[in-house]
């Protein structure tokens, strides 16, 4: 599987994403600078976590308007699998690729901790490799993870099975405990928790590996 990681100014989980992808695919991903106008020919793109543009104005807002995101949008429509973790999720909602918005955590505080999650849809291309495992622990580390969308959107997400991850013990105020969603076509995943920080026993857990393996499996 050929993969790419998009790098914005002050993306800071780009290396974590690169290492996770390299570990699962056996190939170094291509690091794509935000000024590029076209994605390389890859099978899977990760928009990493971090503080693109310092989270200034709104988290993910400025990165979402970058040159490269225009091409991401085009390729997403053609079915390219894309996942955004943490700031990557914020970028995807700001770019209008995923519905809703990520607002300030209910506590108004940044929160970093291992977070238990329930996989609420195991049939997506991002979760099919969990082999029936329903509960996972991924670290969370964010200030703006409070998922919001209007009622109609939420109902639609729920009905379509687009809610893929839910928090066990809501850390940030997200509606319906939503931690991660896909787009309607199912090729784009956005989630606040960090699966790429759970791929090495030294991270305290390796639940994240199955997510990347799912994508790999879905492609084969």
């Amino acid at each position, binding site marked *: 599987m050929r993969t790419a990681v998009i790098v914005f100014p002050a993306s800071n989980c780009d290396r974590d994403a690169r290492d996770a992808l390299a570990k699962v695919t056996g190939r170094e991903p291509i690091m794509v600078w935000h000024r590029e106008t076209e994605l390389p020919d890859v099978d899977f793109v990760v928009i990493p976590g971090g503080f693109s543009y310092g989270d200034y*104005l*709104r988290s993910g*807002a*400025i990165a979402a*308007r970058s040159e490269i995101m225009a091409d991401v949008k085009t390729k997403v429509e053609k079915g390219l699998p894309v996942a955004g973790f943490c700031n990557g999720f914020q970028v995807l*909602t*700001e770019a209008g690729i995923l*519905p*809703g*918005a990520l*607002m*300030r*955590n*209910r506590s*108004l505080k940044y929160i970093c901790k291992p977070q238990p999650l329930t996989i609420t849809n195991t049939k997506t291309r991002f979760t099919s490799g969990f082999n029936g495992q329903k509960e996972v622990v991924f670290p969370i580390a964010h200030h703006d993870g*409070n998922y*919001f*969308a*209007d009622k109609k959107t939420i109902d639609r997400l729920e009905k379509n099975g687009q809610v893929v991850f839910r928090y066990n013990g809501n850390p940030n*105020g997200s509606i319906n405990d939503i931690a991660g969603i896909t787009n309607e076509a199912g090729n784009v995943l956005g989630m606040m928790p960090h699966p790429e920080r759970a791929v090495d026993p030294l991270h305290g857990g390796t639940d994240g590996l199955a997510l990347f393996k799912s994508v790999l499996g879905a492609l084969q």
Partner: protein
Amino acid sequence: MKAIVYVGLKPGVLDPQGRTIAGSLQNLGFDEVKSARQGKVIELDLKSENAEAAEARVTEMCEKLLANTVIESYRIEIEA
């Protein structure tokens, strides 16, 4: 020319910051506070000469970047 853009959460969108501010004010003894909402003001210094044209451009800036219209609404003031 100056433009002032006010960006606030749409009605119906829960505002954690506003809620906390109201709570803290009440805690400090400001019992008269019923509720609070927090928004942003962005002041732009523009090279433009024409107020009307400027307003159209700033509207475009809001739609493209300054406001997230999923959750926010905005209002523009142009100062000569």
